[in-house]
């Protein structure tokens, strides 16, 4: 009792053919490799330099070293994701998937940390 095949079909809805196969040239790979190597060098170098701290409030200081280290790590990761993992040429769905993962990860870390930080509230 299925439909007759002459019926019009709607090619828009299923997400087939959506992803165009994009081949990244090795030149880009080499460039990314260089970026990653430089990033590693910078992050090691930066760890030996005291970048100081920022006094947000008494007892709450932000040290710049870990912030810089994480920023470099995020940049490196972004390059790997975008080029080695072809996300720059990927579908919206792939980007959304990564976004969902990062978002949930941030929820886990953020809301747990929020609990730990606010436990001391009202006690200083």
């Amino acid at each position, binding site marked *: 009792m299925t439909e007759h095949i002459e019926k019009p079909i709607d090619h828009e809805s299923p997400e087939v053919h959506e992803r165009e196969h994009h081949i990244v040239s090795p030149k880009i790979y080499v460039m990314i490799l260089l970026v990653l190597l430089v990033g590693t060098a910078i992050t090691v170098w930066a760890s030996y330099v005291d970048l100081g701290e920022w006094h947000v409030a008494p007892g709450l200081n932000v040290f710049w070293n870990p912030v810089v280290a994480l920023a470099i790590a995020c940049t490196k990761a972004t390059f790997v994701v975008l080029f080695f993992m072809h996300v720059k040429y990927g579908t919206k769905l792939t980007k959304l998937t990564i976004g969902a993962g990062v978002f949930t990860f941030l929820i886990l870390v953020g809301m747990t940390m929020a609990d730990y930080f606010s*436990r001391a509230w009202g006690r200083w």
Partner: protein
Amino acid sequence: MNFLSKEKGLLSWLLTGDHKRIAILYLVSITFFFFIGGALAGLIRLELLTPQSDLMATDTYNKVFTMHGIIMIFFFLVPSVPATLGNFFIPMMIGAKDLALPKINLLSWYLYMVAGTLGLYTMMTGGVDTGWTFTTPLSTHYVNTNVLTTGIAVFIAGFSSIFTGLNFIVTIHKMRAPGMTWFRLPLFVWSNYAASILMVLGTPVLAIAIVLVALERTIGIGVFDPTKGGDPLLFQHLFWFYSHPAVYIMILPGMGVISETVSTFSRKRVFGYTAVAFSSVAIAVFGFFVWAHHMFIMGISNYSTLIFSLLTMLVAVPSAIKIFNWSFTLYKGSITFETPMMYTFGFMGLFTIGGLTGVFLGTSGTDIHLTETYFIVAHFHFVMVGGMLMAFLAGVHYWWPKMTGRMYPEKISQLAALVTFIGFNFTFFPQFVLGTLGMPRRYASYPPEFQILNVFSTAGATILGLGYLLPILYLTWSLKYGEIAGNNPWQATGLEWQTQSPPLTENFPEIPIMDHEAYDYDWLDGQKEKEVASVG
């Protein structure tokens, strides 16, 4: 010729890639585990018949309720609807030949069986008595039972569940038939999709929490150990980050079943289709923001309590939306009262109670008094047994003709539905009162003044047990003696009903084309007229 008769022999089942056969494998295995978990529940209720712990020693009782919890949650509730009915019908509903990754699907079942076997092995070799929540430092340093094997079993079961969820998401995104747009999907697909997101994103956090517990027990690392500076509460953060969404993993697919049955048996499109679809997604998304409401009295910061309590209120709303939409689906319908519909009514009543009592616990003030008592037990069972299990049975009866090609016997199954409903209320309603009175959960013995209500509860459990035995008997009977069902005994609109029963191995003779909305009964009538015309 159908998927059952195509190939014969045990190997053709054990090596199958057919989602329908895997669904049947799952159905058989989860039924087996359900009855083991049910037997353990029976032991619990028997023990609680008297205030003293006279049937079992307290440590035996602790093992029994722990195994009851672990088996029911990880080996029954989590895989129940998705791995059986979802596995069977999602590809059919979206007009696909199979799930996107048939081998992964089979792997998921094998992982489930390995985990289940390990769980049973644990039970046979001394059991485990941490409670299904594995609370540290109890589970890491203070019990001498088989925490490790249980942990591994839960870990593996988690991966089984991840693979099922992953498969569903890919299938729903990539395998839909031509014309099957997102808003033409049956609501069962939507709710399984939402549950799958939770499985994929939540389960790994449980996995890592369990790994850390196992490492702490074996080599003595100190992530959760207060004597080494670790915070035992962190385990609960990680544990509940999965285990709260897990209750939505359990209930969402059940809600999907109800959307299908309520529409079919009132012969009417689900009222507010988009609202119901989006409420599933809303539950999935908000489900991740509320985990710490299990920890209000455990020393999280008061401000966290405030945030998590507020977000809990928000997650309650989509469930209310669903209930009202289902009720209004009946409005101006043409309602019949076959067994699936009776279970559906049971679901709506019991889930409403279960959901509303959840608000008592999400409200931080009343949570202080009610948490960790039988109120929690009752609430949880109203949602999981009254909600999920009713929906599961509704689904099994509803799709039984499609799965087996035969009808179940109507009268006796209606009786079973009624017995289940009555038995359920007798079992679990007294527990709300017990909880309000302050009777703590997980007690092998209790003060004598709680006995009357406990006797009620145990008596109800006997009726409930009977209610669950009946379907096993008559459904098995119907495999051979049931009436031949025909392709579409309920005159339902889903694509799964437009093919033969039991279906072909690749579901449809040719890939169907979806040219109408979901639950379009006018289209169905049109089809019938066409058929009559062509015959005439």
